[in-house]
């Protein structure tokens, strides 16, 4: 059966409340990607020229997991700022602004089955 023939994209808005750990505010996930990175090594992207920011890891029990962020999500916006055409460092900065306690992400996720298959295939 051709799994490629159907895959579901949908966008979701996720609101993450940052957790304070010592002097830092952490979100509980890791990002990969960016326009200065090598897009062919991204295991989560459907299109290997996609230089967007992807979620590569989600820590267990962290604020991101609680809010519903999943591994493999592509982050399209953070608090209204576009994340599809940013460098890796710019993305990091936008997520870790010190004066923000809440970040609202707009993420895109392929259907769960597809995401699992992608991560298994990579």
């Amino acid at each position, binding site marked *: 059966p051709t799994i490629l023939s159907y895959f579901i994209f949908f966008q979701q808005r996720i609101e993450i409340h940052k957790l304070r750990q010592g002097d830092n505010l952490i979100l509980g996930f890791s990002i*990969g990607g960016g326009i200065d990175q090598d897009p062919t090594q991204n295991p989560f992207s459907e299109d290997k020229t996609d230089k967007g920011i992807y979620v590569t890891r989600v820590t267990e029990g962290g604020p991101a997991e609680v809010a519903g962020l999943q591994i493999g999500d592509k982050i399209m916006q953070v608090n209204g700022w576009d994340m599809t055409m940013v460098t890796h460092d710019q993305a990091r900065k936008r997520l870790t602004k010190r004066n923000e306690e809440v970040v609202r992400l707009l993420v895109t996720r392929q259907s769960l089955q597809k995401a699992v298959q992608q991560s298994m295939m990579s």
Partner: protein
Amino acid sequence: KIESLKVTVDFLKVPLGLKKPPLKEALAAVPGPGRAKPFGVERHKSRRCDTMDNESQYSGYSYKSGHSRSSRKHRDRRDRHRSKSRDGSRGDKSVTIQAPGEPLLDNESTRGDERDDNWGETTTVVTGTSEHSISHDDITRITKDMEDSAHLDCSRHLGVSLAAALALLAFVTPLAFMVLPQLLWREELEPCGTPCEGLFISVAFKLLILLLGSWALFFRRPKAFFPRIFVFRALLMVLVFLLVVSYWLFYGVRILDSRERNYQGVVQYTVSLVDALLFVHYLAVVLLELRQLQPQFTLKAVRSADGASRFYNVGHLSIQRAAVWILENYYHDFPVYNPALLNLPKSVLSKKMSGFKVYSLGEENTTNNSTGQSRAVIAAAARRRDNSHNEYYYEEAEHERRVRKRRARLVVAVEEAFTHIKRLQEEDQKNPREIMDPREAAQAIFASMARAMQKYLRTTKQQPYHTMESILQHLEFCITHDMTPKVRRVGRRYLTAGPTIQYHKDRWLAKQWTLVSEEPVTNGLKDGVVFVLKRQDFSLVVSTKKIPFFKLSEEFVDPKSHKFVMRLQSETSV
């Protein structure tokens, strides 16, 4: 032990192809074990053709010797007459190139004048005396060859003597110029001290240099007999002749007649002549030697019988010189021609006969009936499924396997044989009876590997090329020079068919080649020229291609411009 081995060797000597055994004797001499028969028979057959060729020419002459600097005007006219009488039309011109019987690589030997002249006399014309009967074709061929060589003998003789005369004249002239005034009107000459003596020295040395240069350039064993005149040589001879004649004219009129007093002027005139001769020599070097060195054309030589081909790079040459060049390289590049290897096995070919018959229904008024019929037959035969390719494949595979097995046996036998021989060290004390020279050592070893060698040669159909004598000689050679079994010059020499020049001289078969070309053979090579060098059993087709003009452009790469970036794949946790 050696004695017993020698006896075995003698026993084996009989069947292994002697030089010229009558067939019956060879068969009679072989006792019970009948393994030797095929060896002698095939060799004998192939020798039948080449006795003719070995005797038929030894034409040692080419125009390359220094004394062939004769006036070519005579030869030109004669050649033109001859060619006109033979064929007026410009069809295929077929002329003959004959190579001398001496080794082809010896071209630096010094030959004096006398030897050159005598070559004309020792040239043998085809005698036609052979042990075997000759057919009618042979007779006609022989008579034609006789006529040709008779013609050429006379002209060659003439050419050589004219060339010698011209060279001698050119050499003696400066001396004559200087000596004559002294002899004839010594009293009237102005005294000429130091400047003249200086000029004498310069003349002497220049003449010496000219002599050495001529010796180096012209006194060479000719490699081949060219069918047509060599244009550049003819040109040079005409030039020298004109030069010398004009100088003599001037000398005769202005100096001898008027009894010139100024001796220094005369000597300077002589010096100018010698200079001019040196420059002509320089011209000769450039035209004859240098111009052909820079590669301009690529020649592809393909042997028609089995498709072996080679590529050669040559410079500007005329067709006949290119042909000789190709032949020189042929003898050491091409594997020896083995007619036994060419034919498909009979079992494969017999099935190819098509059994179609074509009946034409209707009127018989078509004129191109035959072509239509043949086309139909061919088409039908092609469509029919025939499995001869299958059989050919299996036959080839089987043969390959057999050859490999025999080769393995041969290699093992040779290795074992060589372990029995050891070089005698000085400090070893050995019984004098046991010490052998290389020849005896070779014979001792040979017996133990003779059988494997024979079988192998028979399988690869190489046995006509290796007589026992040649094998023993080669063994001797290997033993003398301590060739290790691993290097296996012995085996390698027999395992692959080597170039023709490696075999005994008799095996070079005919040195007579016929050059067939559509253009006159003194024309230079051009892109697309094709000519054929023919021999009885096969021919070499040579085609020319111009080496393309290379356009090299430059690109400068700054060493500092080599910069690299990492391909990043970072992951940051936020």
